[in-house]
């Protein structure tokens, strides 16, 4: 998943806006953003946070600085050390694909941060929060908690490519706006799932408006 390979795949799949949401880390977002500078792909820095209850939440940010602020908090509340043999090497690269180092934290692990707090943190940093792959059993809010609790500061739900928007609307009864993404862990999976938006540009501000159906911006299902 080097920046070049990611962007090549995004270009091939005609992806215009690409979120980089590594498990519990945003360290590789900037490299992809820089590598994308002379392309038509707008890269959005983010993270997939694992709450204490092992619920996965996607966080998307308007700038790298906000992503790093969440990262700092996540790192402070993420126990464990990575075992490269069990979970693979967690490499950190720059936009030229030069290896800067290895992340020693157990990124595949869970933070000690409860779900509600994860969502509050994301909003406080002006981010957008999306509950990951809710149609799947593992690490999804419904899989882990049995249901979506009331009064969550959650912006949207994400379905995996395994179900359609129609099926999602039937199952989740318009409780939250629904997005779809690939959850790609390999370059060839990029674009397997995607969301279409009606936007003025590819910034997070526009995406947030589309999710909220504001000012004519919207999700296209």
């Amino acid at each position, binding site marked *: 998943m080097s920046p070049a390979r990611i962007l090549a795949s995004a270009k091939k799949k005609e992806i215009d806006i690409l979120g980089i949401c590594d498990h519990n880390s945003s360290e590789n977002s900037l490299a992809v953003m820089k590598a994308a500078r002379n392309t038509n792909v707008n890269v959005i820095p983010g993270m997939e946070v694992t709450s*204490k209850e*092992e619920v996965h939440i996607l966080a998307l940010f308007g700038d790298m600085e906000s992503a790093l602020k969440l990262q700092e908090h996540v790192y402070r509340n993420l*126990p*464990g050390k990575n075992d490269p043999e069990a*979970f693979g090497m967690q490499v950190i690269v720059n936009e030229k694909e030069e290896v800067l180092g290895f992340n020693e934290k157990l990124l595949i692990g869970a933070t000690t941060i409860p779900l509600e707090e994860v969502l509050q943190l994301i909003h406080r940093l002006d981010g957008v929060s999306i509950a990951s792959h809710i149609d799947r059993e*593992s690490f999804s809010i419904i899989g882990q908690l049995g249901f979506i609790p009331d009064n969550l500061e959650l912006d949207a739900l994400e379905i995996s490519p395994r179900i359609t928007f129609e099926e999602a609307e039937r199952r989740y009864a318009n409780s939250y706006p629904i997005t779809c993404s690939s959850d790609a862990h390999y370059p060839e999976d990029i674009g397997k799932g995607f969301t279409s938006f009606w936007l003025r540009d590819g910034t997070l501000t526009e995406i947030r408006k589309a999710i909220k159906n504001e000012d004519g911006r919207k999700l296209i299902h």
Partner: protein
Amino acid sequence: MKVKEIIDSLELKAFSGQKNLDVPVTGGYTSDLLSDVIANSKAGQLWVTLQTHQNIVAVAKLKDLAGIIIVNNREPDEDTLMKAEEEGVPLLGSSAMAFEVSGKLYALLTTRD
């Protein structure tokens, strides 16, 4: 007690890892939260869970667990099976619920020495 004897006593199904059934079992750990198993399980324990995704194999390998018993008649995902074969992790199955499997396993391991 070895994994093989427990399979026989509890009438478990063996999905994979048949070459490592001679491994001695030191105890058991019952949990469905991977972060909990990573933090609190000990080497040689048999892990009782309803999780079927491939990360369970990585966790079992990481913590040197004797094997995994998947409950409620659930079956491991395809990639979980493949990974378990690759890593030689015994993946076992029970039609019973975790409460029952844990109770019986506990009894088996504590009445013997």
